[in-house]
């Protein structure tokens, strides 16, 4: 037992010191990634890490930036939890060689972390943080490559009821910061139409993420007789929801938010159920005419077998790309210069998710949306 104890201690020590001793080659440009590598959102963290690695590799394969310096990714785990996120941010800001950070998934984790980045003057670009308020704090160093809750909500209100000729709308969210935010913004965007009597919100409620049984909520939804049903949460629950809804006889069209439908959704729900499900989404990589998208997608698929199953990791890759681009263009590691350049001079720069530009608050400029549908073969295509 005693040997076991010592063996264990020694292996711990070795494990701690090995990473520190890795050799430094020709000084790379270090970009941080803060994401949920462990914890309940670990799959998002894993994909974000993979995406950033692919994006960095694509840049490095072309000879890096600043005339031959490689991109090095430094990943810190925030476990999807605010306190750990703040510590992760604090760890990165203490490392002078980290130029800027791709950070993070989840608005409530981003909030305290971005406070720290702001205070220590480190450019940080969110990839899965859609709460409107994040860019309303007049922060200098905070940007995001993903859209905001209200842009999608507005798109829904403008297009979806008309498309399905629907007067009775059901909205369901999953009580996560993202899902709830989108649901609220959709409700807000629909309000003028509701006041004018054009549409009616006949159902508005939440389900609990991580649960498996939603038949009760769905029965209520069925009794409300909606003509279109908008679910603003994630694919894992969405797949269960649609399967169970069809089981108990909910027949109205299902429209998911941009996290609700992907290949995993089709896999879990099964083709029978999934086909004919709609979603509001930014253009999917596969539909993007941009070279970057094809290149990224192929590289990702080659390495991991399939494209990422949620939209956020692609925004993470784009965040890394735009940081690399800005460092390359300015030739500077200075946070003020980078932030200034991102705000003023980055405009229409090609990215995986389309041309990238930022508003003065740091929001992504012009995130386009489409209505997608799952076709007979289980592919997700733009709905005509």
């Amino acid at each position, binding site marked *: 037992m005693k040997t076991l104890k010592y063996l264990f201690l020694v292996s711990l020590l070795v494990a701690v010191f090995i990473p520190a001793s890795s050799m430094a080659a020709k000084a790379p440009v270090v970009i941080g990634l803060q994401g949920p590598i462990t914890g309940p959102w670990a799959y998002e963290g894993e994909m974000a890490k993979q995406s950033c690695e692919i994006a960095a590799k694509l840049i490095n394969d072309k000879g890096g930036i600043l005339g031959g310096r490689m991109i090095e990714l430094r990943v810190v785990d925030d476990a999807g939890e605010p306190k750990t996120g703040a510590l992760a941010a604090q760890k990165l800001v203490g490392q002078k060689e980290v130029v800027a950070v791709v950070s993070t998934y989840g608005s409530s984790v981003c909030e305290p972390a971005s406070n720290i980045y702001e205070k220590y003057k480190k450019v940080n670009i969110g990839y899965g943080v859609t709460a409107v308020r994040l860019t309303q704090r007049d922060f200098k160093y905070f940007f995001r490559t993903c859209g905001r809750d209200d842009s999608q909500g507005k798109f829904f209100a403008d297009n979806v009821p008309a498309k399905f000729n629907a007067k009775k709308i059901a909205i369901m969210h999953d009580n996560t910061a993202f899902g709830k935010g989108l649901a609220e913004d959709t409700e807000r965007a629909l309000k003028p139409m509701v006041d004018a009597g054009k549409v009616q919100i006949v159902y508005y409620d939440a389900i609990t993420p*991580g649960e*498996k049984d939603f038949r*009760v909520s769905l029965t209520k939804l069925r009794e409300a007789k909606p003509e279109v049903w908008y679910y603003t949460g994630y694919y894992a629950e969405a797949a269960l929801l649609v399967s169970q809804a069809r089981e108990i006889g909910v027949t109205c069209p299902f429209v998911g938010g941009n996290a609700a439908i992907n290949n995993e959704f089709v896999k879990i729900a099964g083709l029978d159920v999934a086909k004919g499900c709609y979603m509001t989404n930014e253009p999917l990589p596969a539909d993007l005419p941009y070279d970057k998208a094809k290149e990224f997608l192929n590289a990702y698929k080659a390495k991991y077998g399939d494209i990422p199953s949620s939209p956020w990791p692609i925004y993470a890759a784009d965040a890394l790309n735009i940081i690399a681009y800005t460092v390359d263009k300015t030739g500077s590691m200075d946070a003020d210069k980078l932030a200034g350049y991102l705000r003023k001079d980055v405009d229409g720069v090609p990215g995986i998710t389309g041309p990238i530009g930022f508003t003065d608050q740091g929001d992504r400029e012009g995130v386009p949306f489409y209505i997608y549908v799952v076709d007979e073969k289980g592919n997700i295509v733009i709905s005509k």
Partner: protein
Amino acid sequence: MRVAVEQIINGLTIGSFYALIALGYSMVYGILKLINFVHGDFFTLGSYLGYTILIFAAAFITAHFGLWGGIVCAMLVAALCLALTGLVVERIAYRPIYPAGRLPAVVSALGASIVLQNAIMVIWGPRYQAYPAPMIPNLHLLFFGINITLLQVVILVFSFVLMGILYYIIQKTLFGASVRAMALDRDTASLMGIDFNRVILFIFTLGPALGAVTGVMVGMYYRQISFTMGWNYGLKAFTATILGGIGNIPGAMFGGLLLGVLEMLGAAYISAAWKDVFVFIILILVLIFRPTGIFGETTAEKV
């Protein structure tokens, strides 16, 4: 009416999952007075093993044994593996710690839970996994306008059969009597010649095996599994155990079913978002008025 009946059936289905998991908690608690936090993760592991078997051995099994054969096979393998895992965990994480008392064992149980959950994440990856749709029967049945699936019926019947068998073993057989005696008073039972190790062997193979079977059923029923799901089910099942009266086998079954039905009715008639609050408030109210659970003995302490 239709809604209420459907909800009760849904509630019974989810309740039977809780009940089967709760049995594992209750048996371990009865003998060791230990909250076996790792039990929820046994359930998850069982679910992942069943998934793996269905994915990799699907074509072969289905070809030889048919659709149901494949499912039975997945359940059997998962149950066997988990019985073994249960023993290993008991040997490593609990046995060396029994003499120190029950509180250190609680920490060890939490540690084991963390290990198992993260091992699942490392092995299968953090993403959700989907049970293969073609391996799962999806037939709908309509009784008087009430919509249920064949799978639901099978799950309910099978769960009740399992519970019935366990009830029989515990309440009617000589071995069951020795388990109950051990739960009542370990020292006296040992003096009467009941082998403690045999009882431990029994509860740490049967409990996890039941959990594994439940895991496979949950995987089929919802098609989608994640490495963190055991925590949620574990918490609910433990609540069910307490609701029924901890250490009491029929109590755990009843507690599980009641919890499932309460949850569904709370969601239907109060609010889906507040249903867990509703469940916990009921639990607290029950305990205020029956401090040892519904089936718990209310004997005064001997002074």
